């Protein structure tokens, strides 16, 4: 198998055995990028020069046998995480020329391990979307069918992993932006517990929901990457002061007796029949491994999308106020200050971002605050309580990641509400703050990947990973690669 098709742990083992160098794997990945990127368009910026330098540094640093787990591993970073001296655009015109003078905490941690940065991946502008069609620069294609979208907003990262344009990637997830594209691209995507990973340097979309996580080719890789990026950060007061276990330690442990909850609200009408069948089959597989399935109820699930679009847009309307043309980024000169603001923001932001700024501004306005923002906060508490109640009965909750497989480009761009429903199964997890993963659980008759979502208790990524690994090791979905 080509090196670019391997995962972190496989490359790690080969590097440690000195069978290959970081230069070898980096060359393989960039060869792949040269071969397929034109068709996939996963990257906003490819950082080949940096990668060559970083690979050489990693090869130089691995003289001893104590190389860090991510040392020499080519990783792609979603273009909403700040990388010092490297363009960070959020796939937005308004940050089209923005080069951060500082490094995000997650990439600092990777840098400390001597990782290799392959580039910055495409996303829906400011992570707002489910298809990457909201990128100001390009739509990324699904490697399994380049007529289709890869999901979003971390579509670039998911597609890059699926296509072998990197060994692993980081994405961010506000309402499903890691899990949904991972599902649609047939890879593993983990959204950690809110507070598990520092948000410092992640360009904010909705601060109380955003969380960075790994997108990888298999569950072990996700655990390895999560090990590196987790932990309390003095620069992010919302990062939790909780201990970080070795997430790989639980992999391979038995899941017999584990209780798995199946929320009745998640098997909705209108769900794709093949997705439904794959997920039910996956549940049976988990049962065959010794887990027991139980029906649970998350009664407020029906309000999740509405709640999310009030809270996320409210926070976004404020978070995006700083892009005013005054200090950095894109500016259109105006005849006066107000004109400069209006021209800059009208031309700098795309339609979906503007739609959400307007929604959020409205929801926070005097006279509407109680009816929208405050009410949504109350519903958010109810949704969180739903999960807490369910987790008194079961250890994990298992659902489909998405109601349908990858849809065609342009299919939903005219109907924002339809687009929003792509995240219907993932949004509650962000509102509750709990961890959730998407792992491959089958393919449709059209050879499109289907994702299984496994949700755990707050700060219990270990149980999520343990069950995911057990399932993965008894199936072969994660071994498949798209024909490109």
């Amino acid at each position: 198998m080509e090196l670019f098709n391997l995962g972190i742990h496989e490359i790690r083992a080969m590097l440690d055995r000195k069978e290959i160098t970081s230069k070898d794997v980096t060359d393989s990945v960039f060869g792949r990028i040269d071969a397929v990127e034109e068709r996939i368009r996963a990257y906003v910026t490819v950082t080949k020069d940096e990668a060559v330098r970083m690979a050489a540094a990693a090869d130089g640093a691995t003289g001893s046998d104590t190389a860090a787990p991510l040392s020499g591993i080519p990783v792609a970073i979603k273009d909403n995480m700040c990388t010092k001296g490297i363009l960070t655009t959020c796939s937005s015109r308004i940050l089209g020329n923005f080069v951060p003078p500082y490094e995000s905490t997650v990439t600092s941690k990777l840098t400390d391990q001597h990782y290799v940065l392959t580039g910055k991946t495409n996303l829906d502008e400011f992570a707002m979307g489910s298809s990457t069609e909201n990128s100001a620069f390009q739509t990324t294609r699904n490697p399994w069918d380049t007529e289709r979208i890869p999901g979003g907003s971390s579509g670039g990262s998911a597609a890059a992993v699926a296509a072998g344009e990197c060994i692993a990637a980081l994405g961010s997830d506000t309402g499903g932006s890691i899990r949904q594209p991972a599902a649609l691209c047939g890879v593993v995507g983990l959204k950690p517990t809110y507070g598990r990973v520092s948000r410092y340097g992640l360009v904010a979309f909705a601060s109380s929901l955003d969380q960075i996580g790994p997108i990888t080719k298999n569950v072990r890789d996700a655990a390895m990457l999560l090990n590196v990026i987790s932990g309390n950060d003095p620069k992010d007061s919302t990062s939790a002061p909780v201990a970080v276990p070795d997430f790989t330690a639980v992999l391979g442990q038995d899941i017999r007796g584990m209780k798995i909850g199946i929320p009745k609200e998640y098997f909705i009408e209108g769900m794709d029949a093949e997705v439904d069948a794959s997920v039910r089959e996956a549940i049976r597989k988990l049962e065959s491994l010794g887990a027991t399935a139980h029906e649970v109820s998350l009664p407020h699930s029906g309000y999740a999308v509405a709640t999310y679009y009030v809270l996320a847009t409210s926070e976004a309307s404020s978070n995006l106020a700083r892009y005013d043309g005054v200090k950095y980024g894109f500016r259109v000169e105006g005849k006066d200050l107000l004109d400069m603001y209006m021209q800059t923001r009208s031309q700098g932001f795309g339609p979906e971002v503007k739609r959400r700024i307007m929604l959020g501004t409205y929801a926070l306005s005097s006279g509407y605050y109680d009816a929208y923002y405050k009410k949504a906060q109350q519903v958010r508490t109810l949704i969180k309580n739903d999960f807490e109640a369910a987790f008194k009965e079961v250890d994990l909750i298992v659902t489909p990641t998405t109601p349908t497989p990858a849809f065609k480009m342009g299919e939903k761009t005219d109907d924002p509400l339809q687009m929003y429903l792509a995240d219907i199964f993932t949004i509650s997890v962000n509102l509750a703050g709990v961890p959730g993963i998407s792992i491959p659980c089958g393919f449709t008759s059209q050879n499109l990947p289907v994702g299984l979502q496994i949700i755990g208790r707050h700060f219990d990524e270990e149980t999520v990973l343990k069950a995911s690994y057990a399932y993965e090791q008894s199936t072969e979905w994660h071994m498949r690669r798209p024909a490109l």
Partner: protein
Amino acid sequence: MRYEAVIGLEVHAQMLTETKIFCGCATKFGAGPNTQTCPVCIGMPGVLPVLNRRALEFAIRTGLATSCTIAQYSRFARKNYFYPDLPKGYQTSQFEHPICEHGFLEIDVDGETKKIGITRIHMEEDAGKNIHEDSGSYSYVDLNRAGVPLMEIVSEPDLRTPKEAAAYMRKLRAILRYLGVCDGNMDQGSLRCDANVSVRPAGQKELATRAEIKNINSFRFVEKAIEYEIRRQIKVVEDGGKVVQETRLWDSAKGITESMRSKEEAHDYRYFPEPDLVPIVPDRNWVEGIRASLPELPDAKKKRFVAEYGLPEQDASLLTEEQAVADWFEKAVSSGGQAKAVANWMMGDLTRLLNDEGRSIGECPLSPKQMAGMLSLIDQGTISGKIAKTVFEDMYRTGKDAAVIVKEKGLVQISDVSEIEKAVDELLARSQKEIERYRAGDEKLLGFFVGQVMKATRGKANPQTLNELLKKKLSS
């Protein structure tokens, strides 16, 4: 008709922390533009605030010193508006859950003590500063001040006169300075004051429509701006008009307030809880520790000065307005100075000398001990009170001890009766005419004799001894 004004003050106090409220940048005043900034206070994408614990401590200190309740749960909130000096497009402030509430302080006006309620104290970050080019074609933004921690201290509408408002400001400033949380400098903008003013017919219970006066940027304008506004509102009412709710700007050059924006034009700040900062739940032991560390505050100190030193209320008031002044006083007394004498010299000659040069007590070139030393020279009769004034000025200019100056300049008072008698005899021997007039009843001439002897002794004759001698000799 008689009217009553209702006044509430919103005071912004810049906290004396070394670093900004949400990042590690310095807060020093007067640095080059944008030299005290970082990605956090510039509002770059993806950065996050981290609360400066010292700023929280200062706010709690202030709350405890003004008898506030310290919140068990407090939160920051975002106040959203666009302005070039506001790098994030919102100010991180507090709204629903301020750190301190329900306090008060006491003011003394015309011999009466009055309690003024404090509604709330909250923390927030300052904005930067826009600098406009003279040519008018460009403006620049200096973000050194962006993120400097502020406290907003909001009073209840308990003030009734401009004089009370000024007294409130003075007392609040004194407390803030005692606590070391704010330098209280209104001219540099580290203490700012907005006033909410309304007028109603005397006796009416319900509040009338108020106007908010901004830009009161100096201590002496607090009274002036409010006085003007009260007159303006009374005139509006008497002319049959209605006071409108609006924000007005004080123009100190013209001495008037002018409308800035009406209620309809007011911003909708769209406050909501700041999701980047976790709620504050102050540890009760920590709060009690802060309470235990509070210094003696102006009111308590004043009471003690009256009781302990037997000072008149007025003196105690003046001496305790500034902690440094009070400390200076106590040091002088503990160095042996008699309390009332120290008070008189401090409020008189020392204040005059300091004011002439715009110096504070901290910059006083002479020490409390030196003043006590000079007072003991007077007590011992080494110098007269009159000579002491000259000596004191010399001490102030040169920093030398009184005893040294007295010795160098030969200012030791002549208390030796025989020496004074010699001078008196010499004078009387050549003043027959005056002696006759004096004995004929022109007793005012005593002053002439005193003056002449003083002249002859270069002012060093002990005045009491001289008076007694003269009277005795003239009447014999």
